């Protein structure tokens, strides 16, 4: 054993991390806020020695009161998890803020417009829905790992992080280093789905290297990874006011997220849940209030579509219940309320950059709705969502045209299976007029690749794609400048196509131009592409990510087991730079949505998770695949990305939960109020009101 590190050893460092509020101690300080929180770091020469030694660590605990449910945490008598108030947006730690905290609300949010109360007073019908969205684990199959070295005052970390530049910021603050003294690299990741966003085990590895002066690797197993980051569960109540024809007059949402012991990304999850819960509908009066609540559970953060699946379950199930009450077709009630292209459903945000009524028609036609639904244990459900995706459009890319006309693209975006390596190479090849085999992507190394805000929010193809496109154009214009010199003509006389610069007298390849100008087989041309919030990206979000899906399900009347007979997804991506990638994202996202809808849920018993393993936390298997899958791609070139592209990857997940809940509700004649719809829950729902005999 080389060293045992506890929080007491961290004096001199900034001991916390967190990209929104720095409330997360690297190692527990004085109190442990959730079961599974790191208390001591045992460093040894082999993992076996470290594991054996860790078992010999004796921690003396004094029992404190704890809260697991958000509702308990909001009670007046609840123990307060964080005794100091945190200031969102301020990256200093709470200790600087002497305000004692009086509640467990980590973050609160609200939006409203119109006159909600008056609308409800004048409503023809008011429909109320209350639902619970489950506590989830994303289960990227590669768990969290990080390897750190400290050499010559420079920290070098190789990690499984989706956003290496944000991890760099947390690490720089911990060790009080300038950004150029922290190198964070993310090699190819074994899945992410948002769950590898932000800082996880990097501070542990870095502290280990700082203490020992040796390289330190922290490698988690699945159980430890489950105890590192999960997704927010949610209790959502909605009431909606409608006129006789089914037009929405007002919607009023109340959202409570169970955020766990530390804020991580949950303040943003809440903001997104607030923006995404009411759907892409024309709503004259709206009020959404929400809160992210600290509890003594695993900290919750990002997971694919965050905020959207939680809010959408309530919002869309409510639309279905309204349709039933009003005697209006469930597709029709959506059609008459959906915003049209260009219309703004969220004041101050970008107008709708999609044709939602047309997308909905594709879904219901493919489902053969309403004929495909019956109450005879067979039901159809579908849902709509629009997410303010893309995050903040900040990205820089560098394109290097080398002396042999091969091309290196440098980008800070991370490859985790979504295919950015392919899509971005396609964009570069297209822009430069060369074969894709001549393009190589180098990604996610803060020492060499330029700044990328994040890899998430379905933004890479659009935002990083634009940066790559601009870098290619910048490189070509520089190449044309030296080409004019080489070809002895004016720049305006040069025509660039298919990897050649053609002047009035002769045509030269990129390699010939570079070699002629630098004299010999040497030199290169570097182009830079910068994206920030301006021009077509001035309005936020950069694009609306559309989710339009439907399912047909069968319910086993004996067991309550739900089988998905048919899945329909519409990928409204503007322009599919690589259709296979889009289909892959849509099916993968939908399948993860089906997991949350039918089987996935983290369960607490007392203060401990009882199913922090892949046997009892059941993700979809091959046998859970829908019997029939229709993956439709819609291309209307209505996005701001390269060639009219919009993002994909989260949309197909977002309305899956509500679609399955609606389909099961129609199949058994009773609306569910929570996910996942396990056989046991569906069976219970099928029993007569007075309960089973």
């Amino acid at each position, binding site marked *: 054993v080389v060293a045992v590190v506890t929080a007491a050893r961290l004096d001199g460092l900034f001991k916390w991390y967190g990209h929104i509020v720095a409330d997360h101690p690297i190692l527990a300080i004085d109190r442990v806020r959730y079961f599974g929180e790191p208390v001591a770091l045992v460093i040894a020469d082999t993992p*076996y020695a470290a594991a054996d030694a860790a078992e010999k660590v004796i921690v003396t605990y004094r029992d404190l009161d704890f809260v697991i449910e958000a509702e308990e945490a909001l009670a007046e008598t609840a123990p307060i998890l964080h005794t100091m108030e945190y200031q969102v947006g301020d990256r200093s730690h709470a200790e600087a803020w002497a305000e004692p905290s009086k509640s467990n609300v980590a973050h609160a949010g609200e939006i409203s417009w119109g006159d909600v109360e008056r609308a409800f007073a004048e409503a023809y019908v008011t429909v109320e829905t209350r639902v619970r969205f489950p506590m989830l684990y994303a289960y990227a*199959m*590669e768990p969290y790992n990080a390897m750190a070295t400290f050499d010559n005052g420079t920290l070098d970390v190789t990690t499984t992080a989706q956003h290496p530049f944000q991890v760099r910021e947390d690490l720089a603050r911990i060790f009080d280093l300038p950004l150029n003294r922290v190198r964070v690299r993310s090699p190819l990741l074994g899945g992410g789905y948002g769950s590898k966003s932000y800082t996880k085990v990097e501070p542990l590895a870095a502290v280990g290297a700082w203490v020992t002066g040796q390289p330190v690797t922290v490698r988690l197993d699945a159980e430890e990874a489950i105890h590192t980051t999960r997704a927010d569960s949610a209790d959502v109540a909605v009431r909606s006011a409608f006129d006789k024809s089914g037009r929405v007059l007002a919607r009023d949402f109340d959202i409570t997220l169970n955020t766990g012991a530390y804020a991580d990304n949950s303040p943003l999850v809440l903001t997104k849940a607030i923006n995404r819960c009411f759907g892409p509908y024309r709503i004259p009066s709206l009020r959404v209030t929400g809160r992210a609540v600290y509890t003594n559970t695993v900290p919750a953060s990002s997971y694919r579509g965050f905020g959207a699946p939680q809010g959408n379950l309530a919002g869309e199930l409510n639309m279905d219940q309204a349709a039933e009450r009003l005697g209006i077709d469930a597709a029709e009630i959506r059609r008459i309320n959906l915003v049209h292209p260009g219309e703004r459903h969220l004041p101050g945000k970008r107008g709708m950059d999609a044709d939602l009524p047309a997308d909905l028609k594709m879904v219901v036609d493919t489902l053969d709705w309403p004929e495909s639904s019956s109450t005879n244990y067979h039901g159809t459900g579908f849902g709509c969502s629009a997410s303010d995706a893309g995050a903040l459009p900040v990205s820089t890319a560098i394109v290097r045209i080398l002396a042999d006309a091969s091309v290196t693209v440098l980008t800070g975006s991370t490859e985790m299976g979504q295919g950015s390596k392919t899509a971005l190479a396609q964009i570069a090849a297209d822009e430069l007029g060369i074969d894709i085999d001549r393009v190589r992507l180098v990604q996610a190394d803060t020492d060499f690749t330029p700044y990328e805000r994040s890899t998430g929010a379905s933004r890479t193809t659009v935002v990083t794609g634009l940066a790559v496109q601009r870098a290619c154009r910048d490189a070509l214009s520089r190449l044309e400048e030296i080409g004019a010199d080489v070809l002895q003509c004016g720049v305006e006389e040069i025509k660039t196509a298919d990897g050649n610069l053609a002047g009035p007298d002769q045509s030269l390849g990129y390699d010939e131009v570079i070699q002629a100008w630098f004299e010999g087989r040497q030199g290169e041309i570097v182009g830079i592409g910068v994206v920030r919030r301006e021009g077509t990206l001035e309005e936020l979000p950069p694009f609306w990510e559309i989710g339009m899906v439907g399912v047909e399900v069968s319910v086993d009347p004996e067991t309550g087991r739900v089988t998905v007979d048919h899945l329909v997804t519409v990928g409204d991506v503007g322009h599919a730079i690589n259709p296979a990638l889009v289909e892959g994202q849509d099916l993968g996202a939908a399948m993860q949505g089906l997991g949350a809808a039918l089987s996935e849920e983290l369960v607490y018993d007392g203060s401990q998770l009882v199913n922090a393993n*892949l046997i009892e936390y059941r993700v979809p298997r*091959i046998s859970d*695949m829908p019997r029939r899958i229709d993956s439709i791609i819609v291309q209307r070139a209505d996005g701001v990305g390269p060639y009219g592209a919009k993002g994909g990857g989260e949309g197909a997940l977002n309305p899956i939960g509500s679609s399955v809940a609606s389909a099961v509700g129609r199949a058994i004649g009773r609306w569910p109020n929570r996910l996942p719809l396990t056989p046991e829950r569906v069976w219970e729902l099928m029993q007569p009101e007075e309960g089973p005999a």
Partner: protein
Amino acid sequence: MSYSRVQTTVNGRRIERNVLVRQTLAEFLRNELGMTGTKTSCEMQVCGTCTVIVDGAPISSCTYLAVDIDGREVVTIEGLSDGADLHPVQESFLKFFALQCGFCTPGFIMMAVALLDRHQEPTRDEIAEYLDGNICRCTGYQPIIEAVIGAAQRTQGESS
């Protein structure tokens, strides 16, 4: 720490060395032999990611002790290709876009190879049943089934 002498064959190569008795086969392959193609995830035999073939049968190397390969023959993902040409199942996974992040892929491919060794023409249902012990979080599985069918057809085409 106690060790045991192990004589084994890994991907056709004879290996003899002292093996830590507590070491799993996955750890042995990755850390002692540097064969990092085999991944581990759930570490409790439910995800199939760590699947390798021992004496012709697929096993979970995350929970199989390295000392138990004494006298046996191990094939890992590295053993499927000579470096120049991919195995037909690997080719088929590429062709049908049956992987995204690729972390589960070695396990799926080893399982599919074991399946095709036993059944040259598996039906869709047989493939699904055989691969039900392998988890993929990215693809939604459909392309994986297509890839195995494609590989079976290709192997059949070559042998007929």
